[in-house]
């Protein structure tokens, strides 16, 4: 019986998690800065990391579709199971929707995204100030949603570990020898 996630799934989970926490902090910090070379650099890094999350999330989705994760613990009731599935689905949706909204916002604002300053991502939208401002609101709204879902995700993992004392958290951590 599989009691742990695969090493690939774990690596993707924690890699994306680190990137997302960095992106969230950077995103909320950089938008308030006055225009400076530093700000432009941070924006570029944010966009590069965002594109990276989108690509890693694509790999992760493909992995998830072909590898069955360990089952939820027996003690969970139908409502808890529903909440767990809904939360995970929402996280997957946001991992794609947030970078997409950021990329579209950049296009509409007239700043193309060039991954690591090397690979230009085509602009799907023409420059349009009103659309750019609207997409900025969307990008921000999706991120506030993400923060709320992440709080639920982390809170649930801690509840499983400390209150339910099941293996929901540990099976996503490195195996103990």
């Amino acid at each position, binding site marked *: 019986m599989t009691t742990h996630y695969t090493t690939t799934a774990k690596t993707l989970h924690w890699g994306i998690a680190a990137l997302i926490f960095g992106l969230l902090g950077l995103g909320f910090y950089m938008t308030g800065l006055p*225009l*400076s*070379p*530093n700000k*432009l*650099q941070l924006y*570029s890094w944010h966009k590069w990391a965002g594109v990276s999350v989108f690509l890693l999330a694509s790999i992760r989705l493909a992995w998830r579709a072909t590898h069955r994760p360990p089952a939820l613990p027996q003690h969970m009731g139908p409502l808890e199971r529903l909440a767990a599935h809904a939360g995970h689905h929402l996280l997957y949706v946001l991992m794609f929707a947030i970078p997409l909204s950021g990329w579209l916002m950049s296009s509409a*604002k*007239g*700043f*193309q*995204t*060039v991954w*690591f*300053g*090397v690979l*230009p991502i085509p602009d799907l939208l023409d*420059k349009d100030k009103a659309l750019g401002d609207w997409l900025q609101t969307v990008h921000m709204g999706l991120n506030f949603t993400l923060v709320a879902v992440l709080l639920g995700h982390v809170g649930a993992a801690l509840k499983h570990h400390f209150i339910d004392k099941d293996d929901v958290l540990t099976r996503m951590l490195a195996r103990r020898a």
Partner: protein
Amino acid sequence: MKRTALALFSALSLATAAHAVEYTQVQPDKSQITFAYQQMGVAMQGAFKKFTGQLRFDPAAPAAAKSTIEVELASVDTGSSEGDTEVATKTWFDTKAFPRARFESSSVKALGGNKYEVAGKLTIKGKTLDVVVPATFAAQGKTGVFEGRLTIRRGDFSIGEGAWKAFDIVANDVVIQFRLTAAAQ
């Protein structure tokens, strides 16, 4: 009498037509001055909305041509209002002290075909440098269209000082492109 006047008028018109057409007044609404540069590998575009130009260009006598273009630097459109405000400040154009950039030609060389080489002086932010601008000319009805591009280094004109002085974020090379439509006289 009327007939004589008409004949005289036609003769005069013919004479004018036979004498080469001279293009003089730049029509700003049919002209564009834009610029392009790189920002951390991202191609950026901008434009100047206000500029004036005087020129004398006779395709039959290009060596006698002259041109003066003045650009209102505060009319810059960098693509974001934050950027427009920033480049007006002291570190960039310092538009309060230096409101206009100016190009004045000193000589024009015909390179054959519709190609020309315009040498002149470019003044931005109180600094004047010699530049050579490759340009083309095309007659379009009663107007003439001049097009060309010139690469300058922003560092040469102290455009972007202080924190912006390094070229790792905003590149040094700036490509100025123009398309000027001038009416014939």
